[in-house]
């Protein structure tokens, strides 16, 4: 494995970035009554670990499962998984709907039927992926019959 290359830029930007980080950290600690550093740190490291130890391995496992599909179906399936997975992750707080409980009676807050809406959007994504798969299969079949 090639050793990392650190140019002059690294040593120039290091103190600049360090200063910005220090500015942010000092600001955070100075307003500790509202930033609650213990809770802040739990969420910062928790998010990092949740990605590295839960989400990434889960994606890896799904990726392995998709390898069992015929080759022609893999690009549409992987694309649809990326799009629908992103939408589902973004929508988690809406599906849980805790925001609605913060203000009972506020009809403008989380007004949608989010499980149904998400299902509809994801169904649309997979319908597009299905059309893409059929197109790929049809093209391969035609290619096979073509004299050459």
């Amino acid at each position, binding site marked *: 494995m090639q050793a990392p290359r650190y140019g002059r830029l690294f040593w120039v930007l290091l103190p600049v970035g360090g200063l910005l980080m220090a500015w942010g950290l000092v600001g955070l600690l100075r*307003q500790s009554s509202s930033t609650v550093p213990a809770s802040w740190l739990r969420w910062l490291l928790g998010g990092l670990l949740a990605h590295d130890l839960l989400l990434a391995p889960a994606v890896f496992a799904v990726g392995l499962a998709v390898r069992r599909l015929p080759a022609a179906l893999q690009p549409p399936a992987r694309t649809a998984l990326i799009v629908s997975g992103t939408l589902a992750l973004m929508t988690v707080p809406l599906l849980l709907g805790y925001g609605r409980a913060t203000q009972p009676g506020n009809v403008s807050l989380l007004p949608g039927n989010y499980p149904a809406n998400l299902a509809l959007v994801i169904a649309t994504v997979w319908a597009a992926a299905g059309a893409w798969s059929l197109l790929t299969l049809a093209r391969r079949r035609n290619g096979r019959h073509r004299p050459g």
Partner: protein
Amino acid sequence: MSHPSFSSRVHHERISAILGIALGVAFGVCFATGLLSHAAQTPIPWFPWPSRPAWLYRVTQGVHVFSGLASIPLLLGKLWAVYPHLWRRPPLRGVAHAVERAALVPLVGGSVFLLITGITNIDLWYPYQFFFTTAHYWTAWITAGALVVHVGAAATVTAGALRDREATAPSTAAGLDRRRFLLAIAAAGGAVVLTTVGSAVTPLGRLAVLAPRRPGVGPQGLPVNHQASDVGVPDARVDPDYRLRVRGRVARPVELSLQELRDRPAHEAELPIACVEGWSYSARWRGISLRDLLDEAGADPRRGVAVHSLQTRGPYAGARIDAAHAHDPDTLLALEVNGEPLHLDHGFPLRLIAPNSPGVMQTKWVTEVEAL
């Protein structure tokens, strides 16, 4: 045996370079618009937030929230592309490498933190103990600093990867080749924006099926961030003693009953409510001109005002309005919206509406204007 997916074409320097640049641009835009929003809410003497153009904050804050949402697939794709590096042996190769890796904790942790808190905030879900605004703000500085360090560390590799001609060769194998992986990430970003942006771009409102707000949904067809009952507003509809008072540094204090407010000459303005949470809508407001009122009271036109509300709870029971906004001819103390008297949840009897101002500063249930 090596992990098959770790040797896949997606875990490649070129992908990581392209996604890194896209993510850097998205985060840069997010950071800049976030600072603008901060400047609009917390007056900075050397960077006065203008009252014109009236739509500016609506655009900058919409860009902030929707570029943040579009960053979700960019960040996840980028982290996926570089994930094998996390487990590479040896973990540290020299001082510079150790510094680079240490800066990844605030970079990745901060990025994930900013997206999670941003999303939960627009969805009004607060599962953490810190106050969103200050924690999000300071974490943005920390993440920006870590990003600057990372750019310095990754510049050489990135430049090399972008020159890599071989990498553009198409792949014939199964799975996603590099180009298709980037297209899938772009499609995910597009889907995220398409299903949410209608909460700010009113003509696309019907597509906003995954947004926490929709145009047209709320009392009088307009969304409400905080209801009267939520912030302890006494029902002024039945209070005959309601008065608007203009006090503070004025030559002649003014006190007006609701009837006197209604009898004054009315001004009209088409102005947006632009929430810090990204959603916005435009409405036709009608009420009394704050500038005229301040002139009548003999307030200094070079100074701002503090506006106080009837609300007894919540951090936005008042707002400091700088001179540019307080004396803008379109800044109103509105009695009506779209031709109807304000609904209680929209601030009845009187709400502030100023051009190019964040929604949290458009104080509702106004009862006092204090010249500063």
